[in-house]
C-alpha cells in the first residue's frame, strides 16, 4: 500500500489546535461583537473543519482526483447556500419600481 503514514505528532498537534479553537470560539461567543459574532463563530468552525479534512481524513496526502471530487462537493453545497440566501435575505428590501 502506497498510502502516506501520517506521523503521530501531526495528529496530536492538530488535536491541540482544535482544542484551542474550541476554547476561543466559546470565549468569543460571550463578547458582543454585534454582527461579527456569527462571522467569527462560522470562521472558526470552518477552520476546524478544514483541519479535520486535511489531516485526520488524510486529504492533504490524497490523490488529485479525491481533491477534485471534494472541491466539487463543497461547490455544490455553496450553490445550495448562496442561491437560496440570495432569495431570502433580499425579500425584506424595499421593492424596486417595476
Amino acid at each position, binding site marked *: 500500500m*502506497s498510502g502516506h503514514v501520517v506521523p503521530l505528532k501531526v*495528529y496530536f498537534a492538530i488535536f491541540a489546535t482544535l*482544542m484551542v479553537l474550541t476554547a476561543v470560539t466559546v470565549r468569543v*461567543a*460571550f*463578547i458582543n461583537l454585534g454582527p461579527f459574532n456569527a462571522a467569527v463563530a462560522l470562521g472558526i468552525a470552518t477552520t476546524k473543519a478544514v483541519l*479535520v479534512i486535511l489531516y485526520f*481524513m488524510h486529504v492533504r496526502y490524497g490523490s488529485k482526483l479525491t481533491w477534485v471530487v471534494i472541491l466539487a462537493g463543497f461547490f455544490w453545497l455553496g450553490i445550495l447556500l448562496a442561491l437560496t440566501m440570495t432569495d431570502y435575505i433580499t425579500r425584506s428590501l424595499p421593492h424596486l419600481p417595476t
Partner: protein
Amino acid sequence: MQDSHTTAAHHPAFQHHFETMEQQRQASTLGMWLFLITEILFFGGMFTVYLVYRNWYFASFAAGSLTLDVTLGTFNTVVLIGSSLTMALAVHGAETGKRGMLVGFLILTILLGATFLGVKAVEYTHKFEEHHVPGPSFRFGSEELRHFHEEATMLRSTQIHGVELGEVQLFFSLYFAMTGMHALHMIIGIGVLSVLVWKARHGRYSPEYFAPVEYAGLYWHFVDIVWIFLFPLLYLITRHVGVHP
C-alpha cells in the same frame, strides 16, 4: 505492471476486477468520498433551512438558543474531537500493523462516542422536563421570556423585535432534527466500529489491507465535522445578546 498484478492477487481481499491493490484502494476511496458528499448535501439542506429561519426569526431563535447548556455543549465538543483523535490513532495502528493499537483505540473511540450520546440524552431529558419539545405540551414560560428580554434590551440592535412562541418551536424543531440526525449517524458509526473491533481481533486487517478501518474513520470524522458546525450555530452565536457592547 504484470508483477504487481500477480503479487497483489495473492491478497484475499483483492477483487479480480481491479488491476492492482493500489487501484482498488483508490477506487474505493473515491466511492467513500462520493458517499460523504451526499451526506454533506443532506446535512447542508438542514443547515440552509436553519440559516433562512434564523435570519427571519432572529429574536425567537436567540431566545431558544439561550436555553441550551453551553457547558454540556462544550464538553461534548471536546469529547467528539477527542474521539476523532482516537479514531485517527486507530487507523494509524492499522496502517503500521499494530493490532493492539488498532483494537484499543477503536474501543476508546466507541466509549467516547457513547459518552457524547449519554450527554445528549441528559440534554434531551432537560428539554422534555422544561416542555421545550415542539408539540401540544410546548411551553415557553414568562420566566424564559423575561430573562431573554432583560438581556435583549441591553443589545442595541434593530434585529430584536419580539419573540413568537411558534417561531421558538421552529427553533426547537430544527434543534431536535439536526442533533437527532447527528446522533443517529453516531449510533450507526458505533455499530460499524463494533464490527471492526470484532474483525480486527480476528486479524482481518494488515498494512496491505485495512480499507474498512480507513473508511469508517472518514465517516467518523465527517460526523465530527457536522457537530463542529452544529455547536456554534445552535449553542453559541446568540450568546452575546446578554453582553454590553
